[in-house]
């Protein structure tokens, strides 16, 4: 593999920012490093780039331990969260900036700059100063600047988070194309699960300074290893779990304790995707697998409705539906296919779907 992060732990003073973070990025692969703000993504990236010295742990690049190397000896390209174009240099000079230390012959530099400006479709802006560029153009120049010295690995630290949605989507496409064309090994850091799923060959999900799950996006989405991954990759809503023997709701008893199912105890967390839950017409309410609650609020999102139910069994349940749900204050019944339930035993992680 190209990049290997092994047991990375970092403390800022007393605060533990990273705890035993390990993952790998293979050659040519684009890996999404995904997690909420403050989960340690940026610290991880800074450690890989050499701008943070990890408390313990190792970073290997092409099989070589680079943990103690200064940033300039690492062959790691970085695109930071905020624009970092050199304001006193033109676009072309910015892109050429890393070529001299990379040992590129002066005669060849102009051609390389041309090539990378073309790659990001900014040949016209060669002589422009960074201040004259739009937000999206700046990002593209930075991408070209980071790629020009042909780094072993490219780190993209939330490069799109400061842009508006339309631009973000277009640039995401462009980054995917550029990554395909250059084949550069890439670590893409983001808190946006949609971007991460769309771009990545594999995902590393982080939570609270630790790796919460590693895998292909679809695989992580469909069978999340932890409740955190389930709620962060796509939304999920928690279903109340009744201990066995308790006169609880039909759904819990049947789904969890039913034939061949996992024995239920109170330490089990049961999650479901809002889209997997079906609202029933009042006529079907007698059906076996049902949850009953009062509609608390309804949000019309245009393409769908979102209803929050206060369950009789306690807790809130979010339901997505195409047709208009009952008005707030009315009673609603819903059901979920038991194969769609995501079950987790709190101590040992995933229990698995009950089917």
């Amino acid at each position: 593999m190209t990049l290997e992060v092994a047991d990375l732990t970092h403390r800022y003073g007393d605060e533990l920012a990273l705890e035993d973070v390990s993952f790998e990025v293979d050659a040519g692969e684009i890996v999404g490093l995904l997690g909420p703000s403050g989960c340690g993504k940026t610290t991880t990236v800074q450690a890989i780039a050499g701008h943070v010295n990890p408390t313990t742990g190792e970073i290997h690049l092409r099989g070589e331990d680079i943990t103690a190397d200064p940033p300039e000896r690492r062959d790691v390209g970085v695109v930071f969260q905020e624009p970092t174009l050199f304001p006193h240099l033109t676009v072309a000079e910015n892109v050429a900036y890393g070529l001299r230390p990379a040992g590129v012959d002066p005669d060849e530099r102009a051609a390389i700059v041309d090539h990378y400006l073309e790659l990001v479709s900014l040949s016209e802006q060669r002589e422009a100063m960074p201040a004259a560029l739009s937000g999206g153009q700046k990002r593209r120049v930075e991408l070209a600047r980071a790629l020009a010295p042909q780094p072993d690995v490219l780190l993209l630290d939330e490069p799109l988070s400061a842009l508006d949605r339309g631009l973000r989507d277009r640039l995401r496409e462009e980054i995917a194309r550029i990554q395909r064309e250059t084949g550069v090994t890439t670590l893409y850091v983001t808190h946006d699960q949609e971007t991460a799923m769309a771009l990545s060959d594999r995902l590393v999900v982080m939570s609270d300074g630790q790796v919460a799950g590693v895998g292909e996006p679809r695989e992580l989405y469909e069978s999340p290893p932890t409740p955190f991954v389930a709620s962060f990759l796509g939304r999920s809503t928690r279903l109340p779990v009744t201990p066995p023997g308790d006169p609880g709701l039909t759904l819990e008893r049947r789904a969890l304790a039913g034939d061949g199912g996992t024995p239920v105890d109170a330490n089990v967390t049961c999650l479901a995707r809002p889209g997997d839950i079906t609202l029933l017409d009042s006529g079907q309410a007698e059906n076996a697998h049902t949850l009953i609650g009062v509609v608390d609020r309804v949000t019309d999102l245009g393409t769908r409705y979102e209803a929050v139910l206060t369950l009789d069994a306690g807790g809130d349940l979010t339901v997505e539906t195409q047709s208009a749900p009952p008005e707030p204050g009315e009673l609603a019944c819903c059901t979920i296919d038991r194969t769609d339930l995501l079950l987790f035993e709190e101590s040992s992680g995933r229990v698995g779907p009950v089917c």
Partner: protein
Amino acid sequence: MRSHISRTDDDVSTYTRTTWTARSTLLVPALLGGLLLVYVAVPFVAFLARTGTADVLARLAGPQAQVAIRNSLLTATTSTTVATVLGVPLAYVLARRSFPGKRLLEGLIILPLVLPPVVAGAMLLTAFGRFTPIGATAYAVGIELTGSFIGIVLAQTFVAAPFVVVTARAGFGAIDERLERASRSLGYTAFGTFRHVALPLARGTILAGVTLTFARAMGEFGATYMVASNPRTMPTRIWVDFINGGIDAVVPVGLALLAVTLAVLAVVQRVGRVPTVIDR
């Protein structure tokens, strides 16, 4: 006045109203400030009124004035160079690192700005005077630290160096550290990054600091007079002329110094970005 224009446009009337409100609110501070401005302007006018052009030029061409001007230009250039070469790196460290005792160091470096120059001169004499260990050692190898060209440079550097340190520090502080990280990740060492990113980006501010230092060194009198009243610089020349010939004798060299000051001001305004004296 806007109010006379016969338009009932809402915008216009709002504009007029706010303008009037703004005017009446600023009336008192404007009057007080105006008084200060007049007070500052009067001496300039009075001083310039003393000049008879021919006499000034003739006096400036005289040997004494020429020596003073040459000495001042030489010493001020030297002390500004010393202050810049040593002060800009110090400013960079102060802008980029925090370490125990940093506040103390920062206090120390701005101390000469507020210290009365004559006290600074006395302190310099206690440290480098002819009969102190350092002064005596230097004298033994033939270097006079007081009453000499070097003495003038010592006094000027002590008093004027804080300007370039404080200004350059603010200039470096204003540069986003991420630019330097980007430069490091693009293969440049810490020194290469300083040279290619920090220095060019802080250039305007550093230049302003250098210019201010030069102006302060040119005008330095108190400490210089204590440490090295000879050879004469322009300020010490002015003092001697004043003692011997009264106020009119001072006008020619005084005008020359004023001209230097105006030139410095023009440069500083041109390169812009003069931060407040103490910028944390």
